[in-house]
């Protein structure tokens, strides 16, 4: 009898403790993300919004290009050996350039490999290999690889891209 009473006394606080621990674990996994995880998420979002998959309609294209704007700082410096895409651009301009590229191909799947992230205070740099695989409007297949260095800064808790350096993996 004594045992039964003492067990029932402990069960409720124990269950409560377990519930709190589970809640803390959920909070830790979903909300308490490290800077590196947040940056990776931003990059994956960038990859997904910048890619054009076969069968994507105009509305989806517009929505994805608009979503791209949220990933960039007020001004983003893009350095690439191609005049049209090199320079300083606003998120709006980046979005319209993405739209321009989308209109010139049937599909363009972007992927990132071997992402290395270094964080220093409110600044971070992500170094990775990007692949671009797709087909142009005239049916030509392309498959390109580049080395990317993306610089980001933390503004109001969000990591925004302010510089992108794109260069070939093998530089003659």
């Amino acid at each position, binding site marked *: 009898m004594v045992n039964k009473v003492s067990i029932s006394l402990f069960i409720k606080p124990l269950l409560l403790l377990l519930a709190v621990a589970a809640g803390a674990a959920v909070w830790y996994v979903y909300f308490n993300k490290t800077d590196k995880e947040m940056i990776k998420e931003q990059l994956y979002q960038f990859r997904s919004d910048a890619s054009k998959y076969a069968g994507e309609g105009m509305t989806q294209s517009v929505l994805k290009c608009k979503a791209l704007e949220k990933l960039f700082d007020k001004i983003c410096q893009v350095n690439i050996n191609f005049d049209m895409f090199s320079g300083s651009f606003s998120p709006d301009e980046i979005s319209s350039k993405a739209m321009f590229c989308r209109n010139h191909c049937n599909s363009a799947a972007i*992927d990132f*490999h*071997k992402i290395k992230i270094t964080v220093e205070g409110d600044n971070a740099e992500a170094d990775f*290999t990007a*692949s671009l695989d797709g087909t142009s409007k005239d049916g030509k297949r392309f498959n390109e*690889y580049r*080395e990317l260095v993306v610089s980001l800064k933390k503004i109001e808790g969000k990591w925004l891209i302010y510089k992108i350096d794109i260069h*070939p*993996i*093998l*530089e*003659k």
Partner: protein
Amino acid sequence: MLRNWLTFYLQCWRPYRYRQAPAGLSDFIIPTFNAAFFVRLITLIIVSYIVFGIFLIPAYIKGGSMEPTYKRIGVNFCWRMRYLLHDPQRKDIVIIYYADKVLLLKRVVAFEGETVEFRNGDLYINGIRIEEPYVKYACDWNLPPRKVKKDHIYVVGDNRSMPIEQHKFGQVAKDRIYGAPLW
């Protein structure tokens, strides 16, 4: 407990002739699906994964940029430990990580701070002509001098018979060295 497990594990690897059951060719081709078989199978999978997933990466050669040293199509293994303790030497053949599932087979010709140049198909490092016995095909490349950046190496293929624009070569970050071909 551990000793029992070890004894059982070692017994799983005993040759067929030492086992109680009579063994024949059919036993080898169609094995008995008992505990010993699964222990051997799991061991084989783990060892294969470690050997061929980490140390010796199987690679399919496609392309003639290293001809005639390596044929246009072939199979090789990338030995990942080759440059674990030291950097590659000049004229070493290295495997470069290019992208996901894409590796490049190239020869190291220059290191950081050195100047690379091609004059009428001949390679010049710091203005000195380099003997390249492995280059068998005629080459007429011309490339103005350029300095190899810090933490980079300069790699070129052995087959320079194609126009310079069509050949993938140049300076690449040292941390992209993936290993060396096994043979």
